[in-house]
């Protein structure tokens, strides 16, 4: 199918992009286009203008900013996966991004685009949430930083206003030695996650000192499994204790009922997959 007509602009700077968005309330940002172009082809959306960020160099790349790793919004999935800084300081991001779509889509899709799109079945939002990422937006009024917990507001809805750009994502480096795992459950390789679990675990000797758990597709936004995190604190790093803690994984979730699965099945999966993810991360 074929998109409807729109105007197109490819500014060189964030400021020009913001100005273009501010000038036209039905304009839309175009990043990698891997979610937006299919939407346009199926004519599910009719923007008047696309503001393409491909020329905005400042939005690309990964940099080390002391206590945080900063990933530019326009950094492609394939570049995120291969980036040595990401592997070193945000291995969970790399692990989850490697499961996104397929190689050709990862050559185009961007880190910022995936987060701004805010599909609850997308793999990266839960990671951002689990890692307490800060999402940096720029609009006509300047820059602001939004905590991941506040950024994802509803199905395909974020805290970004229509004239704001997501410019970069700050991911606080984890202190100490953490190990990570992203557990994705889908029916076929191409399909989106029915449920996904993003985990980071810090072991101290024989026990789990600290854990982070984010859930994909367990509600209209990504979910932080705080009850699991609390239950894991200080327990011995062994199968029984982890299984017990993972029993809390579905608490407070309202997963969708759709072709991928009914809500109760997803809640069950969340418990099983959380147990497996934490056990794998903890090396149990």
């Amino acid at each position: 199918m074929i998109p409807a007509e729109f105007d197109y602009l490819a500014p060189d700077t964030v400021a020009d992009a913001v100005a273009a968005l501010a000038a036209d309330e039905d304009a839309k940002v175009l990043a990698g286009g891997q979610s937006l172009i299919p939407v346009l082809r199926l004519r599910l959306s009719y923007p008047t203008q696309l503001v393409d960020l491909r020329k905005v160099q400042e939005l690309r790349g990964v940099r080390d900013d002391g206590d945080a790793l900063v990933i530019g919004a326009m950094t492609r999935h394939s570049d995120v996966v291969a980036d040595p800084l990401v592997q070193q300081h945000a291995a969970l991001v790399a692990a989850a991004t490697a499961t996104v779509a397929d190689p050709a889509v990862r050559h185009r899709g961007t880190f910022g685009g995936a987060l701004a799109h805010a599909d609850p079945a997308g793999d990266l939002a839960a990671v951002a949430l689990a890692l307490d990422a800060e999402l940096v937006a720029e609009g006509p009024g300047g820059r602001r930083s939004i905590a991941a917990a506040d950024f994802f507001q509803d199905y395909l809805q974020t805290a970004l206003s229509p004239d704001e750009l997501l410019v970069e994502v700050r991911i606080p480096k984890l202190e100490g030695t953490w190990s990570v795992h992203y557990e994705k459950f889908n029916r076929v390789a191409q399909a989106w996650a029915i449920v996904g679990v993003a985990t980071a675990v810090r072991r101290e000797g024989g026990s789990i000192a600290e854990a982070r758990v984010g859930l994909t597709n367990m509600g209209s936004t990504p979910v932080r499994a705080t009850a699991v995190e609390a239950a894991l604190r200080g327990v011995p790093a062994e199968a029984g204790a982890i299984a017990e803690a993972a029993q809390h994984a579905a608490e407070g979730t309202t997963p969708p009922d759709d072709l991928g699965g009914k809500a109760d099945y997803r809640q069950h999966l969340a418990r099983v997959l959380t147990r497996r993810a934490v056990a794998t991360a903890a090396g149990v």
Partner: protein
Amino acid sequence: MARVRMRVDGVVYEDEVSPRTLLTHHLRDGLGRVGTPIGCDTSNCGSCTVSMDGDSVKSCSVLAVQADGAEITTIQGLADGPEWHPVQKAFREHHGLQCGYCTPGMVMAAVDLLKRNPSPTEDEVRHGIEGNLCRCTGYQNIVKAVLSAASELRGEGAHPGAFSTPPAGVPA
């Protein structure tokens, strides 16, 4: 309308296109490069896969304006004159195609995979082409073909095709 300039299979083209023109339609309808077909409208099937500035992309999910200034290689530009790319040769030897509709995209995806991972395992090959659907082959012979091409590209020689009745002493 927007002016776009791109090099496709070695030839430079400059055209006026509507911003909504998909790269795949620009290649097919605009430039007559019809070797790359279209199989879906949701970026799933991979039939339209081409190489853009050295990376495999689904040309149905790229606007022609986004490819301004890019270097595109399609299945039609993969062979070096009459000499096929090892992946093309291997697909034939291992019967990695039937109707051939997925083939241009599948071959381009495989070429991209081998560029990044010259010695893939069977599993890595399967995941490397997971963005490309084939309805005819069940993938097994495609996987064999990619592994064989990998071997040839590494300089270790292609694998001969093996089928349930070996050709009795005659080259096929």
